[in-house]
């Protein structure tokens, strides 16, 4: 091969490289697969897993059907790339089309994209989109009900935020500033409470801003579709639809909007078309919005989506169906309310006692740190310490009555 190329040595292939690195990389010595995976297992054992988890706050310990993993480990999906050559990418393309369909069905909005990195980046992309659509400076109204991590990402993406009052677990949309490009409403919000998308939308319309609803997709099995409540954009974290917790990713962010806003919508969109023989096929479309064509004037720099995890969500939705998804939501709600009631009976107050919640709620405890320590000693991963004498607890369909009872007992005994 070197002879064909016309160089004498491998070093000769790097004659043009300057400055050269002449040393040896100081990396641990090469391991065989067997040795490397032994290390993986050794480090995995240093993590606390396999216990009932009561943490949520944006990532949920839900049941994933085995068939999801079987589909997404198919090499044809796993080892392909962005479907630039649609003739040999119909599998990924149709999967994206189906993902978009699932998102549109859940959100009640016509246009969905192929997914973005995660829920947080979906929120940030939506914030930027509101500025483009309204031709205003990027500035959005949010409340404490918005996951603080999402808010941080919005700000990192160089969008200003203004804070709306938050009272009794829900947002007060009565005084939205006139100059914002978007009004954000998360429902269920960071504290698990069903917030008022309709009120957000009414306020946004008065100032010609866009309403962005941030929704847990599982909740949309039982809650009204944000599109039907006046949301212009719906975004969220698709992790609950069949993705492992995996210390925070990879997950997938979903985004949907009204057809009239499609030109300012970021991310890849797959559309239906036909081939030369008139046969139905799928292709990436409205590409003129994207970075590889529009460069500095693109709607976003986003290039890849999260195709494989979006496929997981699509397969999950197919396996569950509307009834299964509703059952996941209802089981979680019933168990969460059972736990909340039991904690109440044990003398602990909910932080927002009058607010409607689904499967996540904040409860006031005398010592959250101690409660979490006690839970861990008893083989449970407790909720999120909100830092002001309250614990945010998430209950999924995975939790059993036995675990819930044990949780109450441990917390009660921890004082």
């Amino acid at each position, binding site marked *: 091969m070197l002879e064909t190329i016309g160089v004498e040595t491998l070093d000769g292939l790097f004659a043009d490289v300057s400055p050269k690195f002449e040393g040896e990389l100081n990396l641990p010595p090469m391991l065989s697969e067997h040795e490397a995976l032994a290390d993986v297992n050794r480090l995995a054992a240093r993590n606390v897993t396999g216990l009932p988890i009561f943490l949520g706050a944006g990532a949920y310990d839900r049941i994933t059907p085995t068939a999801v993993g079987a*589909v997404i480990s198919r090499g044809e999906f796993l080892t392909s790339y962005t479907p630039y050559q649609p003739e040999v990418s119909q599998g990924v393309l149709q*999967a994206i089309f189906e993902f978009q*369909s699932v998102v549109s069905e859940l959100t009640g909005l016509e246009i969905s994209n192929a997914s973005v990195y995660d829920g947080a980046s979906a929120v940030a992309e939506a914030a930027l989109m509101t500025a483009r659509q309204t031709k205003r400076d990027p500035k959005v109204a949010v409340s404490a009900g918005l996951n603080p991590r999402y808010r941080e990402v919005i700000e990192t993406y160089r969008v200003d935020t203004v804070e709306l009052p938050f009272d009794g677990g829900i947002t007060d949309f009565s005084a939205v500033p006139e100059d914002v490009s978007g009004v954000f409403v998360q429902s269920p919000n960071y504290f698990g409470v069903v917030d008022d998308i309709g009120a957000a939308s009414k306020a946004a319309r008065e100032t010609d801003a866009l309403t962005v609803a941030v929704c847990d997709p599982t909740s949309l099995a039982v809650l009204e579709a944000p599109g039907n409540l006046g949301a212009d954009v719906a975004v969220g974290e698709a992790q609950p639809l069949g993705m492992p*917790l995996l210390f925070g*990713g990879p997950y997938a962010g979903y985004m949907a909007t009204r057809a009239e806003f499609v030109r300012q919508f970021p991310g890849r969109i797959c559309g239906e078309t036909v081939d030369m023989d008139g046969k139905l096929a799928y292709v990436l479309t*409205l590409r003129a919005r994207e970075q590889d064509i529009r460069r500095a004037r693109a709607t976003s720099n986003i290039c890849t989506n*999260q195709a494989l995890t979006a496929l997981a969500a699509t397969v999950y939705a197919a396996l569950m169906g509307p009834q299964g998804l509703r059952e996941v939501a209802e*089981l979680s709600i019933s168990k969460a309310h059972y736990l909340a009631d039991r904690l109440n009976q044990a003398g602990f107050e909910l932080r927002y006692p009058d607010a409607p919640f689904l499967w996540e709620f904040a409860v006031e405890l005398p010592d959250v740190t101690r409660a979490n320590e006690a839970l861990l000693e008893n083989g449970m*991963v407790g909720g999120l310490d909100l830092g002001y004498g309250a614990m945010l607890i998430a209950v999924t369909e995975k939790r059993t009555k036995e675990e819930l009872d044990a949780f109450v007992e441990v917390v009660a005994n921890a004082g």
Partner: protein
Amino acid sequence: MLGNLIRDKGREGRRGYTLPRSDVEKTDLKKILPENTLRKEQPRLAEVDEPTVIRHYTNLSRKNWGIDTNFYPLGSCTMKHNPRANEAAAATPGFAGLHPLQSEAQAQGALQVMHEMQGFLSEISGFPAVSLQPMAGAQGELTSIIMVAKYFEDAEDHTRTTVLIPSTAHGTNPATAAMAGFGVQEIGIDEDGCVDVEELRALADETTAALMITNPNTLGVYEKNIEEIAAILHEVGAFLYMDGANVNAIMGRMRPAEAGIDVMHFNLHKTFSTPHGGGGPGSGAIACSETLAPFRPDPVVDEEGDNYRLVRPEKSIGRLAGFHGNFGVILKAWNYTKMHGPELKDVTDMAVLNANYVRARLKGTYRVPYEGLCKHECVVQPPKGVKALDVAKGLIDHGFHPPTVYFPLVVKEVMLIEPTETESKETLDDFVGAMLQLVERSPEELYEAPVNAPTRRLDEARAARQLRARW
């Protein structure tokens, strides 16, 4: 007749999964939620059983090519083999079941993986500081450029309005600069395909925030003046950012920090063999100098005694991900690095060897616009009168995924070929054979290609004109 979509294959009431029976009393939604918040119509999702789901998606997968099924020399995408040990690592229950908000004490194994990977990337790049948080290359670019913006804000230097970008750059570069609030100034290339140093000298001034360079660039050419370029930028107080899409060409042979680069991103899904998954998830880790280190995203992993901790860099730009980025991808890349160690240099060498070999074999029949060595990928043009698109579609009939075509924009009818190190000489010879045969065929014949693919060429205009993007 059955339609094509999963939803068309269902029957009302059919189910693909059984959930555990409830062991608590069912909560009446009407009692806990206001009437107007309850869903009136259920979403029209598929109602199918598990065999139907498996068959549907298995058949869809068969209409899709991946590295597993075909040679996939897509330029600038580094479609190397994805070792299955990586997948096993990420599927380990001790990682897969770890919630991102579990305490540091409960996540020491994961934090150690992240800390070690930070160290690996630091060693490979020569930079003292790393952040693993960006979830894709484009987000790594954005992270880097926002860090530059924050640096100037922090220094109260308000004159920096422009980012310089070579005409060969990926489209994500100008889009990123615009997202970070900068104006974009394009800069030309010289006869070797490298950034035009004279033009740079004329353009760089106190309004310049950074130059975004890809090295080797998208022509597969090593930027021979990289050190001089860095010096010119540093003279005017600007930064040199390197798009790391092409790091597979330099690992163990060159360290970006030693060339004067200030900040760069890696594509773990390219260089470090994690699967592309049909377009993600990826990971766009960044590495940077001491000067920019305080601006890295929140958090990074530090080691304190025997413990690993999440810490916020002093002047952090904030977070870009909901949690810690695409940890699963980082874990796979960590496993890959451990399975190569210092021999990552061999990866580079074989990738560069393969690209130069393909180019040498195509030369003569295909035009080679830039002479000299190429790195891990090469650009060629079909003979005059033959379209790159037609060759690309013809390759499909030969069982090869086409290279990148019509990019970079600076060469007409361009094909950007990246074979990667995981392909054998035999595969490369077969590919070259097909490339050489295709230009012998008549344009009319080529226009018909592909004929042996799941679909023929598509009416792409129709998809946009009659937008239908859901069932």
